[in-house]
């Protein structure tokens, strides 16, 4: 049981990392570059800005900050679950 600890932790950690990176890819490359023209034309505008343009210039950056906060919270919770938390 003890032996399996690091491996389970690592698997869970990779799961978090890959899900966050998937979101990261969609908000930046997806919305901002690859599907920008389609989104500019079809998605609802943000204020007076076309959606794809806004994602590329503002939205993606906001999402990045949120992603990092989620990462820190999830990882700290995971560390605590596996007993890796360190005292202050």
């Amino acid at each position, binding site marked *: 049981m003890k032996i399996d600890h690091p491996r389970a932790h690592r698997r869970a950690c990779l799961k978090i990392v890959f899900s966050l990176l998937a979101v990261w890819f969609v908000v930046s490359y997806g919305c901002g570059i690859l599907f920008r023209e389609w989104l500019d034309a079809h998605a609802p505008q943000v204020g007076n800005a076309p959606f794809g343009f806004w994602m590329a210039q503002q939205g993606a*950056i906001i999402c990045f900050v949120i992603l990092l906060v989620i990462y820190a919270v999830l990882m700290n919770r995971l560390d605590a679950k596996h007993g890796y938390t360190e005292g202050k």
Partner: protein
Amino acid sequence: MTQDHLNFIFIGISFALYIGIAVKSRAGSTKEYYTAGGGVSPFANGMATAADWMSAATFISMAGTVALSGYDASRFLMGWTGGFVLLTVLMVPYLRKFNKATVPDFVGDRYYSKLARGVAVGCAIFICMTYIMGQMRGVGVVFSQLFGISITSGVIIGGTIVFFYAGLGGMKGITYTQVAQYCVMAFAYTIPAIFIAMALTGNVLPQMGLIGSYTAGGESVPFLEKLNNINTDLGFAEYTSGKLSPVNMFCITAALMCGTAGLPHVIVRFFTVKNVSAVRKSACWTLLFIAVIYLTAPTIGAFARVNLVEKLHDTPYVEAPYWVQEFEATGQMAWVDKNGDGKIQYYGPGKSDAGTNGVFQGKTPTYPTFGATEDQLIGKHGERLLANKADDSNPNELWFGNDIMVMANPHMAGLPMWVIALLMAGCIAAALSTAAGLLLVLSTSISHDLMKKILKPDLSDREEVSYARFASFVALAVAVYFGINPPSQFIAKTVAFAFGLAASSFFPTLLMGIFAKRMNREGAISGMLCGILFTFGYITYFQFLDGTPDQYFLGITPEGIGFVGMLINFGVAFLVSAFTPDPPQEVQDMVENIHIPSGSGEASHH
């Protein structure tokens, strides 16, 4: 009180503050010199990293680039922030756990090879050198603006200042100075933007102004629509749609992101905090502080463009605002009266049959040499004359450097003098903080990785720090030289190359070092060499030799080629490692160990 007095007061106060902090927290040991002793709080480190990260290029040129290219500039906005996501989830927690002072240290130990360490040192030096050149240029631009001197003298003055407080203070001195510098930068960047947003759109938040309506012209129209109309009327591409192909856009953004995650001077910043959990927290703060500036940059760019066109286009030169002549004097703006009507006309490539909008022949303005007669220097409307021949293939008469957008913005909007003074102080803070951080990595790479670990293992602590200080002096001298003679026209471009090189060397090598347990010495070294040689060759060919855009590989510009270099690095590394022996057991154990987040202790250099 004149503008000059105010500038001096603001800059004087900020300098006194930096130097005071640097002297108070001066480094005593190598450990403090390299990683500030490993006890910086996540919040303070976040601020310092943000200041370190936001260079003169970000501060001065980025908004200008956005103003000029609209949507296309998103590659910088996303690239330089999105890289932090990669950096945080894939790199720094593991490297911090590994617990060494520098990035080549990790490469050397993980790939159990002095050669790997040597290649990494070479890459680190090269990347930092490319990057620091842009910074020195930035310092020069600010000082030339400030004192009305040439950019050359500006670069030299800036270099001297950086040497005195960074070369001597070490990481500990730099970290706390950068905290102060971030505060100056953030205020300097956002306050003018808020004023301008209120003037043009009636919104207090610039970000709301960008998506809001333009109200300054009487009736209210959507701001971006106004901007698109201005652009198309003058013969430029629409602001919200770009000219770059999606492939190129994708590659440049990817190269910038991966480059960010592989930049040695950013990675070492996270070695200054206590443990892995503090690293994660610190990364959140860092990106938040960076986002404050990056979310403002596109708004400044957009506002500046509207202001510039409204103020200058079709205005008689004699009635043009005072700052036009100031920028002419420093060679950052030029007007050639092609049609002889005495008015300034500003047009894009769409207005000429040749598809060009060059004002004169050649890339930058040149002026008649000393001893020229009065009528060779000053034209009949009082404008500064150029030595370049006019480019008569198009009607555009106004040339300006990208870099002036941020600097001219408060002038254009007629903001109070203290705002302009604050902006000057902010520009200098941006250039100094990044230059200092880079200088530190350069000097540690030389003193620690090259001297101590490769050439002279018996070096004492004290000698190592002396070597570091000496190395920073030499590095700075070289950087000053290239700051005066930049290999590329705009600051943002020079810096983009550093990212291409980081993306093709460190990012893949570190990533495989952390996640691919079976990656061995042979694979890593050959991958790193292939990646960086390919990228370096491609950039050199198109920047310094006679490569032309139609020879681009898949239409990818030199800025984005780092992404291809990275793929080559991965490919070669996995191929070579498949045919060579696995790494030794203790290295494989080490890789297992860096995935366990606890027990990182203090960063050390032993």
